[in-house]
């Protein structure tokens, strides 16, 4: 049976077909839909964890207990989970364990474009990389068996263009593996130095077996040599394979479905059959460096960029410098950057912060958009939780006129320990938790503060106030960010006080909130066309002689009315 599946949906399907029983993840573009798709299978216990480290560790626990398990995350999520990941290579697995990680070349929705393949090399794990949705299904399914056979976690490397592209997929049936026996084996699972030392050499032995495997006939399905015109050859993997086939349909291509360890002998044989050999890989020269170290003569980053996303055009023009597509290009087109939605509860906080003129240590989420004009209210964004740690460091450095902002989901992901640090090390930092009741940017996933699980079931609803008080913050204030004046006053008071404080700005995200039954309109007689309202950065507002409000877009938050100096923006109560 054929289905039209995205790479992420195909990964979920492949895992389900392999008999997956437990999956955990934290939402992050472009990996989010893996867990979302898994949550729809009744046989799979699919969970949103507070962060990627917890997700991976929980998956390790399930594998230990004998069930096939998976953790999925975006590339920077593996940084959070790197601690268990690196040692997991030492312990190995009991039941099959797959870690699916999606990179984001071109930074469509990320803070960096690091290359996850480096982790596979560093940890010495088996790594697979599918080049379309069909392979995403097949490789994920195979990964569980290989994980068990070689006693190693398998890293499944995806990129945005695989995760979010759809293709035709032949689907199969589910196998139902028996739960494996738990084996109490301290020398395998207790990574004390004495045992870990032995497990390290054991890992090297397991990795040697993987090196033999990739050269053997058994690995043929993953390593496809397509010999055509021998003047030019390409070594490539993943989405780049499709770009090479598109750009050079006549050329010889060696497609790597296994990207760690590399089958050097196979590649050497292929290299000997072609006159010139290119290695095509997005981001880092991970393949290239290894091939060159093996003495295999390849052309790589001499011609291809080490940044950004590739395409058929990038591949073709890098190899053939004379190539120029016959296309029409329009320049000076106004950009259309993403913006906070009309009615977004974050907007009022930014308007208040801008008026206070404080330095704002930001974080990862929709609210990062507050950095863009016209709000221009955020002054740093490094990684999840960093804002709360940074405001403490800045405070210690004498910078008192500063706050941290962080979302509810992000606070639970990585902000709690940073807040603990503020209390323990006694800075007078002010942290604003913008609680919109969901993980908004990735598509309104629930989290421990929502009282709902990934499967839509009811669960214990964590109280952010109690967590904050629990780590020792005594000053906790809750405000409604639609009330800009109060939000401003409360933050101002907390800034002046010489002790740690948390302001929770609470309003549901417009994606989950009900409409308010009111909108706003402009009293044209009063409007002086000063443009103050436009500076709140709302798509519903525009200037056509006077300010005007698109009533279809207006959510009724009233933040623009707060900033109007002549009270020209007035409420309209809708009848229904």
């Amino acid at each position, binding site marked *: 049976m*054929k*289905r*039209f599946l995205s790479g992420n949906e195909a990964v979920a399907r492949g895992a389900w077909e392999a008999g997956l029983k437990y999956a955990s993840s934290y939402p992050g*573009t*472009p990996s989010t839909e893996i867990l979302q798709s898994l949550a729809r299978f009744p046989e799979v216990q699919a969970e949103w964890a507070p962060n990627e480290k917890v997700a991976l560790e929980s998956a390790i626990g399930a594998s230990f207990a004998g069930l096939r398990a998976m953790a999925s995350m975006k590339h920077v999520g593996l940084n959070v989970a790197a601690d268990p990941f690196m040692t997991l290579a030492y312990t190995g697995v009991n039941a099959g364990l797959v870690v699916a990680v999606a990179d984001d070349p071109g930074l*469509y*929705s990320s803070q960096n474009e690091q290359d996850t393949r480096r982790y596979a090399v560093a940890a010495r794990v088996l790594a697979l990389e599918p080049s*379309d949705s069909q392979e995403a299904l097949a490789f994920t399914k195979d990964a569980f068996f290989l994980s068990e056979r070689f006693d190693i976690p398998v890293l499944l490397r995806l990129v*945005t*263009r695989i995760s*979010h*592209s*759809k*293709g*035709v997929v032949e689907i199969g049936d589910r196998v139902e593996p028996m739960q494996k026996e738990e084996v109490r084996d301290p020398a395998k699972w207790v990574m004390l130095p004495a045992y870990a030392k032995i497990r390290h050499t054991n890992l090297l032995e397991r990795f040697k077996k993987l090196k033999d495997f990739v050269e053997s006939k058994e690995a043929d399905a993953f390593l496809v040599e397509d010999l055509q015109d021998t003047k030019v050859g390409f070594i490539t993997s993943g*989405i780049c394979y*499709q*770009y090479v*086939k*598109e*750009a050079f349909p006549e050329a010889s291509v060696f497609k790597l479905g296994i990207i760690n360890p590399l089958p050097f002998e196979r590649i050497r044989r292929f290299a000997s059959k072609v006159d010139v050999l290119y290695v095509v890989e997005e981001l880092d020269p991970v393949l290239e460096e290894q091939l060159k170290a093996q003495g295999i003569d390849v052309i790589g980053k001499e011609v291809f960029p080490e940044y950004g996303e590739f*395409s*058929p*055009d990038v591949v*073709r023009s890098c190899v053939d410098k004379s190539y120029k*597509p*016959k*296309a*029409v*290009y*329009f320049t000076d*087109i*106004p*950009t*259309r*950057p*993403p*913006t*906070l*939605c009309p009615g977004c509860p974050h907007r009022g906080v930014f308007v208040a912060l801008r008026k206070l003129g404080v330095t704002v240590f930001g974080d990862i989420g*929709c609210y990062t*958009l507050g950095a*863009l*004009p*016209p709000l221009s209210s955020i002054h740093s964004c490094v990684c999840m939780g960093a804002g709360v740690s940074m405001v403490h460091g800045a405070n210690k450095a004498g910078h008192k006129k500063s706050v941290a902002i962080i979302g509810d989901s992000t606070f639970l992901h990585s902000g709690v320990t940073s807040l603990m640090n503020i209390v323990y090390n006694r800075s007078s930092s002010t942290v604003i938790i913008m609680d919109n009741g969901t993980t908004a*940017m*990735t*598509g309104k996933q629930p989290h421990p503060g929502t009282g709902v699980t990934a499967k839509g079931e009811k669960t214990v609803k964590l109280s952010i106030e109690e967590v904050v008080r629990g780590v020792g913050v005594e000053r906790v204030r809750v405000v409604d960010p639609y009330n800009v004046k109060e939000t401003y006053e409360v933050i101002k008071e907390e800034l002046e006080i010489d002790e740690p404080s948390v302001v929770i700005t609470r309003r549901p995200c417009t994606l989950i909130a009900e409409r308010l039954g009111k909108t706003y309109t402009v009293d044209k007689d009063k409007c002086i066309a000063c*443009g103050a309202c*436009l*500076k709140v*950065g709302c*798509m519903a*507002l*525009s*200037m056509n002689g006077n300010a005007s409000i698109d009533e279809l877009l207006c959510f009724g938050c009233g933040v623009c009315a707060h900033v109007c100096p002549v009270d020209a923006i007035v409420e309209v109560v809708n009848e229904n």
Partner: protein
Amino acid sequence: MKIDVVICGVGGQGVLLASEVLGALAIEKGLDVKKSEIHGMAQRGGSVFSHVRIAEKVFSPVIPQGTAGYMLAFEELEVLRYAHFLSQKAKVFINKQRINPMTVLSGEAVYPEDPVGMMSRHFEVKSVDALRLAKEAGNVRAVNMVMLGVLSACLPWSEDDWFKAMEMVFPARLLDVNKKAFTLGRTVL
């Protein structure tokens, strides 16, 4: 057969749903099909595009520049942003609707005076008031199906084929209005 379509518009206009219907139809017809798009941060009112490629065998989900045969644009400015994917023989269908981006609203940038005219100098362009037809069909959100209907008139499949694909994508309660919008688009030119 080789059909490459660029569908573009603004977050919330239903770009991704339109490409989903096209993909479902291609599978029904036993063809290979790939589609590619970007989710996440790019969707917060930002520019949205989808590439749909249908052929006996499709490699890249991204269309090479200068080669796409069709464009469906749900917003006038967005046609300019993705024009470089089009071949010189491309047919371009544009919804007569303008949505100012934040950069224009805040006065940083100016909305081009005549995007349709700019496109017409290079391509075969048809402009359609899809918003009006969507309203006529009973739902302003059905602009995407009006535009898909417009495209369908140049593709080889019957209205029934398209309806079957729509049945696979839309929940039953939304089918009637979307089919109606599709038919209005299919017969407008």
